[in-house]
């Protein structure tokens, strides 16, 4: 079975631009989470979506938004890009959304560079 897929793999943008990152979860997984990983640190939680609704949000500004589609794929949008947004953006999926089902499976990530 295919794992979590993300596109694009790499992206270069300039300050002030907008970016859209895409994620397809493992087949049958209904929950998608987004993380930001800055070089040298562990991933930081941005959003969790389940059944097309936002179920959780980390400490990120409103420039960050996301949505989930009926097929459970997801998009992460970042507006007004800053240099500090340069990072590896990771998408993770899991089958269900309840407690006791916390194991998440990660995609390969999208490397975003903001110049």
């Amino acid at each position: 079975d295919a794992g979590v897929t993300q596109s694009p793999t790499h992206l270069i943008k300039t300050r002030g631009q907008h970016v859209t990152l895409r994620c397809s979860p493992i087949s049958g997984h209904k929950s998608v989470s987004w993380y930001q990983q800055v070089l040298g640190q562990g991933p930081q939680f941005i959003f969790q979506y389940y059944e097309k609704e936002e179920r959780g949000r980390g400490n990120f500004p409103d420039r960050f938004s996301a949505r989930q589609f009926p097929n459970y794929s997801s998009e992460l949008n970042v507006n007004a890009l800053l240099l500090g947004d340069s990072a590896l953006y990771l998408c993770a999926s899991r089958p269900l959304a309840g407690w006791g089902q916390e194991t998440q499976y990660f995609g390969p990530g999208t490397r975003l560079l903001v110049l």
Partner: protein
Amino acid sequence: TQLLEQSPQFLSIQEGENLTVYCNSSSVFSSLQWYRQEPGEGPVLLVTVVTGGEVKKLKRLTFQFGDARKDSSLHITAAQPGDTGLYLCAGAVRGSTLGRLYFGRGTQLTVWP
């Protein structure tokens, strides 16, 4: 503030040596995961531990979840160059945002032949 403190941050050893990586917190976790990550790639799940005191083995890797579910350790026996990578612990806190994993900063392991 880092909810999970991981140590050591860097580990450089010779092939054949044993090592232990620690993951500690003052919070109680409903589950804890260990991942391994290669440069520029996503974390790959190694194991999930759920029950306090649980020990899981994956070939030469042994994972332990503390009795109070506040800490965990990863022990590698007879390390090999193929074990080189970034090891991350991550936990879910009941009562926190559902679906949120809290990650440690990671342990960068290098095993020399």
